[in-house]
């Protein structure tokens, strides 16, 4: 009846069967690919083990299943903390971690694509909610945003403002715990000496850093990290006794919880710095 063309071979009309189609790649709905992750792990593995010599403390506090929002401090001109955390949790716990970051990355050709394939997701509240609540995944956010990695060496290990506490509100809405992670080592792996705000504005990027690495290695310094010893400490998961699924939560409550988490992380970082004997050997 619907023969718009006089087909020489009548096409069978499959009436009720669902037609899934055959996928050719393993890229998921966020753009992450297990295959790309494996390649990334193979490249980053030696760096993780031999260069940064990453040490974790309290990994068991990260839930084995179900959604959780990981929050960490953010540092280094081109932050090395994100791949370290994602790689570490994936290797140690066998769970994928979706790293949420500024939309800016999505718009950069090539980089944005690679970033998405290795687990980067633009930090939109809807994205976080879907990952945490509907899919029970681990999502990693840096509440300091670009204010974290853009701070200069003089300000190292001083946590910036935690935005407007959006991450707390998301965790409340999704009904998942917040798991804070304190990171020491990222600051020294690529310290910023000063910034070029004029140039940043001109080329439309959040910040243009001049790092110690660049002074030593020239443009190569963009990719060459100093071998600072990485130490990560997972703090106790924070749960909120509020009903999940609300559209809005009391702003004062949200800010208060965010500040509590920030203070806790700041104190832990100072504690870890007190225990640290050497930047390079831990």
């Amino acid at each position, binding site marked *: *009846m619907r023969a*718009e063309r006089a087909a020489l071979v009548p096409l069978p009309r499959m009436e009720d069967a669902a037609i899934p189609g055959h996928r050719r790649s393993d890229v998921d709905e966020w753009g992450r690919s297990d295959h790309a992750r494996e390649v990334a792990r193979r490249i980053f593995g030696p760096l993780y083990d031999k260069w940064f010599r990453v040490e974790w403390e309290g990994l068991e506090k990260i839930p084995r299943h179900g959604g959780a929002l990981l929050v960490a401090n953010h540092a280094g001109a081109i932050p090395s903390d994100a791949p370290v955390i994602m790689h570490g949790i994936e290797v140690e716990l066998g769970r994928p971690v979706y790293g949420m970051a500024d939309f800016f990355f999505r718009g950069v*050709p090539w980089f944005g694509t690679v970033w998405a394939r290795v687990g980067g997701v633009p930090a939109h509240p809807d994205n976080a909610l879907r990952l945490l609540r509907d899919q029970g995944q681990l999502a990693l956010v840096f509440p300091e945003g670009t204010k974290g990695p853009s701070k200069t060496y003089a300000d190292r290990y001083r946590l910036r403002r935690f935005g407007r506490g959006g991450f707390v509100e998301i965790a409340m809405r999704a009904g998942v715990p917040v798991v804070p992670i304190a990171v020491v080592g990222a600051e020294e792996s690529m310290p910023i000496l000063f910034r070029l705000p004029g140039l940043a504005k001109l080329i439309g990027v959040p910040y243009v850093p001049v790092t110690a690495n660049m002074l030593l290695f020239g443009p190569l310094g963009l990719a060459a990290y100093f071998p600072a010893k990485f130490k990560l400490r997972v703090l106790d998961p924070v749960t909120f006794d509020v009903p999940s699924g609300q559209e809005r939560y009391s702003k004062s409550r949200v800010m208060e919880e965010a500040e509590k988490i920030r203070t806790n992380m700041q104190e832990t970082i100072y504690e870890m710095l007190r225990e640290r004997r050497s930047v390079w050997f831990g």
Partner: protein
Amino acid sequence: MTVGRRVLITGLDTFWGGRMAQALESDPEVEMILGMGTREPSVPLERAEFVRADQTYSILSRIVRATQVDTIVHTFLVVDSTRVPGRALHEINVIGTMNLLAAAGQSGSPVRQVVVKSSTLVYGSAATDPAWFREEVPRTSPARTRVERSLLEVEGFVRDFAEDNPATVVSVLRFANVLGTDIVTPISINLSRPLCPAVAGYDPLLQFVEEDDVTRCLEHVTRHRIPGLYNVAGAGKLPWSEVAAICGTRLLPISPLATHSAAAPLVRLGLIEFPPELESLLRYGRGVDTSRIGKTGFSCRYTSAGAVESFIRAVRLRRSVGDAPPSYTYSQDIEQFFRHSPAVVHSTGEG
């Protein structure tokens, strides 16, 4: 008032109008189908009546009064800017919808339901987008292309209409990019050629809906009188590079800077189709959340990957057996004879 629905379909001569009329003909609850179009229908129809009208439907109020239609299915919205010049696009989408809604909202109007076939183009495509748009989430970047602007305007009219006529069921369906056995879009043209454009450095995630699912969904909301605004797309998303791989075409990377100018000569030579709305889509892709339409009891039969598969299978068949000439040409005398001559015996319960 469930028996004997009288349905008016806009754009009977277009792909979707024809499909929709065919689908409704087999519904015994539908008593009368009236199709409007600027040209003659290109598909064989059993009982749908055809009336020729200009594209802005200036005579629509008279038709609505005279035929007492209770349902209007508005499929005649142009979502492909390569089909018509910009001026005509505005006339068809904006002015056409305005006249349609004016006719449906006139005092004493018999119209009880208006179904509008919109597109997920209204969300646009930008770096700042969420991965999945819910219906109530607005687009994040201003609309720059003509099609997107006109569709936003259309949806605005429809929203106002729904507010002013609370007794009328208003259903708006936003369909993702359509692929399938027969439909021709800039994407399907690109995918059926040996070289297919891509913006270098980007590999966006896309969603597709199969053409049969589009008709099924329009039918679903019409038949069950489901009010509201819904996204419709196949499950899952897949990267553009994978779509090209499934279709056996190679990607032709176009410079990420000055993309439009870089693509212009290739478009001129007829090598690729590259309307502005495709350019942003091939950068950032688009995803829409379809849980709301799912709750009304509708699910797409094809996933996004399934729609691509369905499309390329049809292309392969055509490559082997050739493009058969159209089997049907409309002739007014013959159609009139079959519908209205006392000589024709109408069998009941057909289809």
